[in-house]
């Protein structure tokens, strides 16, 4: 079967754009929210900088409830909330909402795990130099974990590309939608293949940039 690329090419470009928008917006918002959530999980843990056992327990439970839900089910489960906040459950804008929620939670856990690996000795050094708790957290603990954090964020970038393909299926547009609608449902394997190649390029570029940045940071 011959694929009509003259017809599909503009659709592919639009899909790539939609994916890029969804991924970028999610990475930016969830990156910041996840960093704060992860830092909170790390610091609130009993025995750590801010030691807030109740806060820790609550955040921990919330993360543990959200994270294991398969994303495609999560999208539909938070549908009513998306509808209330965004006004619709269809389109790229609506798709970003569940992505940001899920990505924030997962990034939060990734950040927490990397911060836990920081030597408590440097925390003590910063504290005995007279640094406050928050200053120690964001001025010392986070920079000390920067190398692993960059790798963690690279991992999450790729996971978010994955998520973006899934929201496509339930009306979010993007490459996932493109592959299903014009590939799978039209029995056009070539379209699916092209989509896969585009996504692989995305992921490879992201991983290469992440590795390069992490190596620069870790070499010091």
């Amino acid at each position, binding site marked *: 079967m011959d694929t009509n690329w003259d017809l599909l090419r503009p659709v592919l470009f639009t899909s790539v754009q939609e994916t890029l928008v969804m991924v970028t917006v999610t990475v930016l918002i969830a990156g910041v929210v996840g960093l704060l959530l992860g830092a909170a999980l790390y610091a609130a843990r009993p025995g750590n900088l801010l030691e807030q056992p109740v806060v820790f327990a609550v955040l921990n439970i919330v993360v543990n409830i959200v994270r294991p839900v398969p994303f495609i089910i999560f999208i539909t489960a938070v549908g009513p909330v998306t509808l209330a906040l965004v006004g619709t459950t269809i389109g790229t804008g609506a798709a970003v909402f569940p992505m940001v929620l899920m990505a924030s939670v997962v990034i939060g856990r990734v950040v927490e795990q990397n911060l836990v690996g920081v030597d408590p000795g440097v925390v003590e*050094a910063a504290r005995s130099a007279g640094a406050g708790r928050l200053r120690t957290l964001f001025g010392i603990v986070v920079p000390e974990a920067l190398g692993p954090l960059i790798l963690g964020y690279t991992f999450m970038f790729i996971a978010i590309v994955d998520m973006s393909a899934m929201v496509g299926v339930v009306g979010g547009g993007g490459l996932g939608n493109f592959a299903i609608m014009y590939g799978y449902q039209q029995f056009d394997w070539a379209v699916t293949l092209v989509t896969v190649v585009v996504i692989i390029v995305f992921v490879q570029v992201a991983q290469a940039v992440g590795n390069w940045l992490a190596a620069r940071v870790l070499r010091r």
Partner: protein
Amino acid sequence: MTSDIPHPHVRFVDVVKEYPGRRRLFGLRAGSPDTAHRALDTVTFDIPRGSVLGVVGYSGAGKSTLVRLINALETPTSGSVVVDGTDLTRLGEARLQKVRRGSGMVFQHFNLFASRTVAGNVAYPLRVAGRPRAEVEARVAELLEFVGLADKARSYPSQLSGGQKQRVGIARALAGAPTLLLADEATSALDPETTAEILRLLTRINEEFGTTVVVITHEMAVVREICDSVVVMDGGRVVEHSSAYDVFAAPKTDAGRSFVATASKGAPTPEALQRLRERYPGTIVTVRIDDSFGSPDVTRILDRHGVTGTVVYGDVAEVQNRPLGTLTYELTGESEAVAAAAAALADGGRATTLAVAGADEVAA
């Protein structure tokens, strides 16, 4: 051990520090859930301004808790810790941060910030204190010069040797011109040569800036090298507190004795004596040496009795610039003269005859 110095730099009064039983200590549960672990038990002592204090004790004796109370990283369960006349137990977190800037801390594993350059590490306490950039740069340059690392300002800690890392740690601790320097096992991770270098640096800081230095260590050799006074800790209590010389010359407790034994040979053990006797058939006498009685005095007494003495075991070192040690001699000569010389040496309890020439029995 009561507080009798008029204006000590640091004063501990009946300090008790307990950790909740569930807290893990050294990876193990310390006590059952409802019993607290008492890390410090009614500790009272003073640290005079400008002195070098050694705090010795085995792992878990409470040494680290002690320093963490001085720089207010921990608060006592009861009692008070007074630094520069201020009772730390009455201060809130904001004031405590200012207090911590008045003391510098040096760590066993250096605890440098890997994400910052050498200069960035040294600058950190000054940045925290909100000093102007020009002042920070000038001070960092001065400190790196002082510790001999001016050429490493732009290096990262991972590029330095252990001794260099510790010198950065010391420069960082000195950044805010503290009047109190706390060294928690600062040389325990270093080789002997580097240890000597770091100890010289600590002595220089004490002498040039009049900084009070508290050295936490399990190495008595460190104490012998630089300390004026010693606190011996055992089971969370201060069991001995006196001048370094007195602790070395006459330790009063088992903990004190076993620590002193790690740094100086003292009299030979029964096994060592057995080997000595096989090699040296003469009479074996052990003599305590101090600043009132040195090896020339031993030689003088032996000469007077016409007896030859050879040192076969022991050591003499300086503690607080005064000689101290134990020497074991083999005495040879006419048996009556040897006995008389041994008796003369033993006069005043300074010497003990461990073995008599020709006798099978070994005297205690």
